[in-house]
């Protein structure tokens, strides 16, 4: 029973970070039609900045604020400086462009932090909850709560507010949206900043429970991407829930089937299944009506 609880708990907290990253990817996709494969870097940046500031004597809370701000700025900068001048590019080139940004971010992290692992004390103190013999922490529950709240809030924002609907409209048709008085550029910056913020948030909550290294971003991005793909790149709440499911699946496979098989199998099989179920088939090749 203890093992089961532990498996569920660790699956959920990992899944929560996949969900937050996936949510960020959905937001970026819905505002610009770009699959943001640098989304996981906001996690690395926030984690490393916070750890660095904590070790230089700042309080954890203040360091966390700085870390999350850095991740938010990274998100905004990605949109403003890299993507905005090139939005007319075909999507396959933009994907590689974002990968190049991710590589640069990893390069900076490697240069600044080196290959060692970093961590810091939990924001909520080091309180521990024993649930049915399994050791859990407050931070873990906060993380799970945050992902559900963020998913619900973003869904509400995108579907129920004028600003959010404007954001969706931007991706559908930027030129018409701007003619209708929507500030397309602003919407994009907001979406990318929020995505960066969410990635940073997942870092300050998750890193105390595990650790962060300079190259943590890419694998996190890919799992977040699975979550986003399971939500058909549309539903923010769906991405969060899918992230939890991915985390649980990974955790259960790792505990009960084969540790080696866990991550790649989850990634691979879930992606293929998701795509085959969700991908609309090409009927006549035309997505556009004549």
């Amino acid at each position, binding site marked *: 029973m203890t093992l089961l609880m532990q498996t569920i708990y660790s699956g959920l907290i990992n899944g929560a970070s996949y969900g937050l990253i996936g949510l960020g990817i959905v937001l970026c996709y819905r505002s610009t039609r770009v699959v943001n494969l640098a989304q996981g870097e906001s996690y690395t940046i926030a984690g490393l900045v916070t750890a660095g500031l904590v070790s230089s004597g700042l309080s954890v809370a203040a360091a966390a604020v700085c870390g999350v701000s850095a991740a938010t700025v990274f998100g905004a900068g990605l949109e403003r400086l890299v993507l905005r001048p090139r939005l007319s590019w075909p999507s*396959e080139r933009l994907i*590689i462009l974002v990968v190049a940004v991710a590589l640069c971010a990893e390069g900076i992290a490697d240069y600044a932090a080196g290959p060692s692992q970093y961590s810091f004390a939990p924001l909520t103190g080091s309180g521990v909850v024993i649930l049915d013999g399994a050791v859990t922490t407050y931070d873990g529950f906060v993380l799970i709560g945050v992902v559900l709240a963020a998913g619900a809030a973003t869904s509400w924002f995108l579907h129920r507010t004028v600003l959010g609907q404007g954001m969706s409209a931007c991706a559908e048709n930027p030129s018409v949206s701007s003619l209708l008085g929507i500030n397309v550029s602003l919407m994009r910056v907001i979406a990318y900043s929020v995505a960066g913020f969410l990635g940073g948030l997942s870092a300050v909550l998750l890193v105390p429970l595990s650790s962060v290294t300079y190259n943590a971003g890419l694998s996190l991005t890919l799992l977040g991407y699975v979550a986003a793909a399971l939500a058909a790149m549309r539903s923010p709440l769906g991405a969060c829930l899918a992230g939890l499911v991915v985390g649980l699946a990974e955790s259960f496979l790792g505990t009960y089937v084969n540790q080696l098989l866990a991550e790649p199998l989850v990634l691979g099989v879930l992606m293929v299944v998701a795509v085959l179920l969700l991908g609309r088939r090409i009927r006549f090749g035309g997505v556009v009506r004549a």
Partner: protein
Amino acid sequence: MIPQKARACAPGTLSRHLRGRSSWRLAAVIVLAASPFFGIPSWTVGTAVLAGIFGIAALAVNVLVGFGRMVNLGGASFLGLAAYGAVLGSTRFGIPYTLAAIAALVAAALVAWLAGGVFAKLPGFYFAVAMLGVSSAIQGVLEAFPSVTDGDSGLTTARTLPLGVVTVSSDLQWYAAVVVITLIAVGTVHLLVRSWRGRVLALVREDQLAASVHGIDILHVRRVLFTVSAVLAALSGVLLARWQGVVVPQDAGLVQSVQLLGFAIVGGMGSLAGPALGAGLLTWLSNATSGLGNIELLVYGLIFFVVVAYLRAGVVGLPGMVLESPLARRLRLPGAHLPGGNAPGRPGPAPAEASPPARAVMHTAPGGGRTGDGGSGLAAVSLSKSFGGVRAVNDVTLAAAPGRVTAIIGGNGAGKSTVLNMISGVEPPSSGKVIFDGQELSVGDPVERARLGIARTFQTARVAPDLTVEENVRAGAEGVYGLALLGRSRRPGNDLAGRCRDALNATGLEHIAHRRMAEIGGGQRKLVEVARALALRPKLLLMDEPGAGLSLEELELLAGLIHGLRESGTAVLIIDHNLDFVAGVADSGYILELGQVVYEGDATGLLKQAEWPVGAAVTPAGGTGA
């Protein structure tokens, strides 16, 4: 790549521009091939071998991304599978490596063909995600069964390459072998994507809808590309295993896949020499930056970023960029010109004298001699279509007979385009059926319709902007022949070129045949679509607002064409708002209102009936012709 068509190139057009570039590419390949002997730091024979092997894999990715616009984030899947298959076959079962490698290639082709049936259907980024998943799952499975695959440490094998009579072992021998194999791979792909296949591919890439109504089976094309790509990746894999002397799960994994896509894009998407150049540059870069310690990844990342962000056409596009830069133009370097700006003759109006041949040209039997008697034409029986709760078309029954021009008129939102889409198979009807020459057509299958001799045009022209007018017309006509990988039986015959020329003459486009689509006006683009449809020698021609956006001269030309088609026994079905134009060409027609037929009868009655309030600007007076 536009070889063997020198005669088709007007001076100073894009074609010459491209040919200039392709010779540069050839030079680049030669330089790349000979480069280990130039004393470039860190560019050793070993690096060159690796670059060549990765170049083949990157070419595999480029076949999908560059020629089919299928973003492949799992390019390493088949590479890793084939490498493991060949090594396992030779070490565990004692099969000679050459045989095992060939078996791996054949297996890759078979698996890709079967899997392609599913994967080729995935649109857009779903394909990318699926391939990413496949790549990652393969790596996972390879890691998870250490008893067979030796897990993370990988399978070791000899660092020699037995090639039948000779065995390659020294670095220099490897180098020679890889250069030859890479050139063969590039040459094979070149044969596969040049001339008519290239045009068909371009049409599929640019506009799948237009491609499918011209009889191009898009799924088949994508499946063929997928298979070709898999075989190339497998070839790269069986070479890589022997060159490294070991094959590890990461060879099939995600990082490798992303890297391969990076090679293809840095080199230049859709080019043949590009992937090898990209692989060469990045392999050299990672070699040159290794040993920089902490800063290695940053330097690599920055250079990668600069190439992706600032060299739009990749490394192969570099000389073009240099030649077209303002500096080069100021210095008047040879080849420095505004692209397309100096083509002979300004756009100008279509010459009126082009219309007389229209009639003559179209006198040949409809359907390209497929049938002598015109058949019974088209009948649509109680077609209905609902979008959500909106019933856009409600129980519409209509017919279009051979040798007659039938018009459908109606206000905006009356359901005219939806009717045409259902007839042409672009949209499946909610209920009802379409019968052509006594045969019921399958639901939503534009390819079948094209093969039966039904052609259509679109409200706004759907063409491949990077091809010339002539190439667009030919691509459409060639589409019916499918993209047979090896089959020659259905290859377009010589008469096809003649047909296309006739179609261009008939539409008065021959004087701009070699201009790129992006350079010509909207009315002319629509005429290109008409020419493309005519080149199919259709038995039934569906036209969606053919007159919209045309100049008076062009309208007159079009009317002449339609008369010619009627006399040659073709059935023509036209949708239009322009009552003047309809009056000039139609024999009979239908009026649609709110998705229902409210009038059917001859043209005179049609126009009388049509004095509705909708078109205040419309004058249903006597027509221009007839």
